[in-house]
């Protein structure tokens, strides 16, 4: 039995320089490609939502936390309380967010922000753009039950320190069940561009309400390109 050597000649690739796209006939192509994608806790996801933690105060607002599923959660029954006080205004996060005294130095929070920053406000939670581009950020709230005469409001502001000058921090208004708040895109100082952080303090107003009032609900945070 003779062995045969087959030499498969590759002919000269004539005219490779003029080989135009769109000149091949094919019946089918099946191309395998690698894809990796995973889920992350809110604290490290593309749209980062994190409780604001202050070492300087020794503790975070116990009512704001990441739950076991990694989702940001506000629960006023943490720590043994059964609810906020009736006929009162309870703040989660500072009510004084426009003032210098409400801010702490970078060394005194333990948030691993992407970009350098000078101050972190004593907010209830923060939202950071960890995606790939500028977005328009919209925040809305919907009650799950009957709030009665009580109301919850999320005061939205950015991370610019008052020391930056007039107009700092930027404030965007209050999110309530009737009113959503939009942080614009577009690259301006106030916009939700890449790396930008937006903060919220929560005011729970039970003035004139009763202990039957249920302020529970769902906060919807959307980051979209316009």
């Amino acid at each position, binding site marked *: 039995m003779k062995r045969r050597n087959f030499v498969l000649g590759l002919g000269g690739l004539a005219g490779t320089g003029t080989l135009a796209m769109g000149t091949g*006939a*094919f019946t089918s192509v099946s191309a395998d*490609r690698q894809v990796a994608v995973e*889920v992350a806790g809110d604290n490290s996801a*593309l749209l980062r939502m994190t409780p604001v933690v202050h070492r300087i105060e020794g503790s975070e607002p116990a009512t704001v936390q990441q739950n076991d599923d990694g989702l940001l959660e506000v629960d006023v029954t943490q720590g043994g309380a059964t609810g906020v006080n009736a006929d009162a205004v309870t703040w989660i996060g500072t009510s004084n967010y426009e003032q210098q005294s409400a801010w702490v130095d970078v060394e005194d929070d333990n948030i691993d922000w992407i970009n350098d920053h000078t101050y972190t406000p004593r907010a209830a939670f923060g939202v950071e753009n*960890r995606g790939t581009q500028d977005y328009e950020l919209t925040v809305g709230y919907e009650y799950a039950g009957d709030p009665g005469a009580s109301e919850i409001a999320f005061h939205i502001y950015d991370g610019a320190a008052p020391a930056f000058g007039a107009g700092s921090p930027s404030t965007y208004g209050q999110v309530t069940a009737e009113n959503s708040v939009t942080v614009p895109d577009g690259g301006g100082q106030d916009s939700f561009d890449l790396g930008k952080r937006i903060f919220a303090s929560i005011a729970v107003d039970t003035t004139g309400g009763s202990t039957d009032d249920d302020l529970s609900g769902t906060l919807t945070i959307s980051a979209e390109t316009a």
Partner: protein
Amino acid sequence: MEVQVSDDADALLAIDAIDGSPNSEYVDTSGNAIAIDISSVEGGTGLNDQALTIIQDLLKITNQGTQNVYVWAEGLPTDPRVAFGSQASSQIQNAGTGQGENQVDVNPAGSGGAFSTNSNLDPNDIDDNEGSGGEEAAPLLAPGDYVDVEAFASGDLSGLDFGGTITINAVAEDDV
């Protein structure tokens, strides 16, 4: 007979990132074959759970052959689900909402048409000619046509950690 192998961007079925798209950060085009990684971008390490995430302008797939082909993807994770869709910016032959059509431009601002077999696509009826009614056809690309591909995920994504191979198929219209 002459056969050449080309980079994805120059092949008969061109698979490439989209020029100028910020979401090209998720697409590695450095090798001969593209790869997608949504877990290693600067800062964010993954998709938010219990949220709708749409990553538009992820891929552009172009028919550089000589006949009409249906193009679709399979092998994406189903539970939890991350799917691919066709965007309104695509140029295809069967845009529409009827039988045998792809709902690519029904909602230009939101989720587009079906592109992966775990979206609104029946893998056993890619051209949607069997009249089940609920599905779409895969995008049908004439020579020179292209489909812009987005990725989307929503709801309960707990446990999602997908690293694997997906398959992008192109089959001639007459052979489906």
